[in-house]
């Protein structure tokens, strides 16, 4: 995986040289930091699964960003209106067949491949935002509970327990069935918000009813997502706060807030980062599961879970290609994030990184 190391090193030095240009002497001053980055890049490039995961995540990311723009079929045009034979066309793979959609069509005669590009954008946005909103909430509560202890800890952790004990899916179902009407009203009244969310999900502005459904899934997931983080952060905080450097920070007169965010958080962040990457995969699947159950957007929005559930009605005789393709796509996304998370765990743990550093030095000696 030499190419990955070279590429990452190039990126690091590009950044370093840019900083050097603005403030001369930056590289010599920050040589330890650059070395640490290079070491991380090396550790990452040494793990094949990490590189594979990174590539998958990169592909998914690119497709999600540009997907709705390059998609060659609008999702709101139903071809079966013109010709009934477009419904559930089988895949048409090049050597034996040509001219028809590559991976077949769905029940409205739309190209499945084109639809999946819209779907990827939706599930990518939902999963990333759920984790990016849920994790900070849990992290802040966990830090407070762990550091303050006593009554605050007790109250916060019991609330967390309540949320953990409550089945996430049921709570999400409750939210997803109540919220959409209200969100719909909000979106109806506010056109700027409508445009913003429509472009975020890669949908048309006219589908604000469906966007409201997506947002309510989103909201429901954030609500059930934070307790895991709160618990993990509290646990790590409890052990880190006993370290003398926290006491030293207290004795240099730092405020509670700066101790929390400057000394505690950075010391507990690595397991959180790993958990976040894993959770992006879980959130993708969870969102798909919710819309599979019919709680998410409805026609014509090509949400991955919703399309699978629709195709399931004619499974396996007519629609197996849709189910298999979209299912594998979800699997692909989930595996990518999981592999990346696995590699991150090795890189972010200073102990394993030291071992890698040692190996690197040995290799250098061998080369002479």
């Amino acid at each position, binding site marked *: 995986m030499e190419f990955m190391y070279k590429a990452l090193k190039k990126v690091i030095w590009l950044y370093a040289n840019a900083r050097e240009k603005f403030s001369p002497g930056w590289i010599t001053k920050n040589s330890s*930091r650059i070395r640490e980055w290079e070491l991380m890049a090396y550790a990452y490039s040494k793990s094949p699964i990490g590189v594979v995961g990174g590539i998958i995540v990169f592909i998914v990311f690119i497709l999600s960003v540009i997907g709705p723009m390059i998609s060659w079929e609008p999702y709101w045009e139903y071809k079966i209106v013109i010709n009934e034979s477009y419904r559930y066309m089988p895949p048409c793979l090049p050597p034996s067949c040509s001219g028809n959609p590559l991976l077949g069509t769905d029940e409205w005669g739309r190209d499945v491949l084109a639809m999946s590009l819209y779907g990827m954008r939706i599930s990518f946005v939902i999963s990333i935002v759920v984790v990016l909103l849920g994790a900070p909430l849990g992290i802040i509560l966990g830090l407070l509970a762990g550091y303050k202890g006593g009554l605050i800890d007790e109250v916060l952790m019991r609330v967390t327990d309540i949320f953990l004990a409550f089945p996430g899916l049921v709570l999400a179902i409750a939210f997803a069935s109540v919220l959409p009407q209200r969100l719909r009203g909000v979106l109806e009244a506010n056109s700027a918000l409508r445009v913003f969310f429509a472009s975020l999900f890669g949908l048309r502005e006219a589908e604000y009813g469906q966007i409201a459904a997506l947002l309510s899934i989103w909201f429901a997931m954030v609500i059930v997502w934070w307790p895991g983080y709160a618990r993990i952060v509290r646990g790590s905080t409890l052990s880190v706060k006993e370290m003398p*450097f926290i006491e030293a*920070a207290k*004795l*240099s007169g730092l405020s509670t807030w*700066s101790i929390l965010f400057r000394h505690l958080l950075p*010391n507990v962040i690595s397991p959180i980062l790993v958990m976040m990457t894993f959770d992006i995969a879980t959130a993708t699947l969870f969102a798909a599961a919710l819309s599979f159950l019919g709680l998410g957007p409805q026609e014509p929005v090509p949400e991955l879970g919703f399309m699978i559930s629709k195709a399931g009605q004619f499974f396996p005789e007519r629609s197996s290609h849709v189910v298999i393709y979209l299912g594998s796509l979800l699997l692909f996304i989930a595996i990518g994030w999981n592999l990346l998370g696995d590699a991150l765990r090795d890189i972010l743990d200073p102990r394993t990184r030291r071992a890698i550093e040692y190996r690197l030095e040995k290799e250098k000696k061998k080369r002479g």
Partner: protein
Amino acid sequence: MIVFYMDNNLYLPENEILRVEDLVVKFYTYAGVVHAVSGVSFYVKNGEAIALVGETGCGKTVTTRAITRLIESPGRVESGRALFRRPNGVVVDLLKVDPETLREIRGKEIAYIFQDPTSALDPLYTIGFHIHETIAEHSKNIKKKYTFKKAVELLRQALIPNPEVRVKNYPHEMSGGMRQRSVIAISLSNSPRLLIADEPTTNLDVTIQAQILDLLRGLQEQYKMGVILITHNLGIVAEMANRVYVMYAGKIVEEGTTEQIFYNPQHPYTKLLLRAVPDPTKRVEKLESIPGVVPSLINPPLGCRFHPRCPFATTKCASEEPPMIQVENEHRVSCWLFEKS
């Protein structure tokens, strides 16, 4: 503010910076109440170094932690006062000040050097950042450029070679001695009035110990700080301190100037302690020690706490607590042997 403190009758002699009176700290553990510090009083004059000496577990560290309000549950400061003169002349009781004032005092007016330099530094930040943080927390709108320049200056004072490079180093890139010296540099970053050094040389080898002591002494003279030195190494005491407090089982048993303690020790414990220091010029078959063990502080012995191990103990020692008895100018001892009839 000033009126409020004056009303509380906080009087501190003009030449003193800190006066601790009757400090009592107890720990409420499952095994019972630990009487960690029972009625300790001492004072520090401006620009003077005092030493708290005693065996492990005699309450030296707990005393200083109580002054800086670092005692946490299950420990509790039961009574006592710790009067401290702030640079603006106001005298405050450190055990009672509000958290905001305490935060201003900590790190700016009172600095603390920890026993273990390895873990007193956050592994994720450079030495320069530690110094920057300590300065910036106490003076708003300060530029990072300025604090890093100051950091280089401080590190140079702390005898760290090549400070321009070292300021950007992480703790793991330095040796133990250098880390201890950077901890000292950090603690000096706001030119504190009082420096508490909790066994600053315990983890270091002898040559570095000497360097660190020289450094501390030089800096003490330069900054005119009061220093509280906690140690069980009597050599360091002789080197650094102006006055010595000998602690045993949570109490001060003898106090006096360094000369008085070393040349004319009075309390049996101090005498035995001084005899236990090995003389490097003589070959000894068996090292001297004080017979017996430090008593459990959950049920401290009645009367004088040293009487079970004391060769001169009488029946009175086992039943009544000895008062502090003046034997010389500034030299006081807590022992019945010196009672004037």
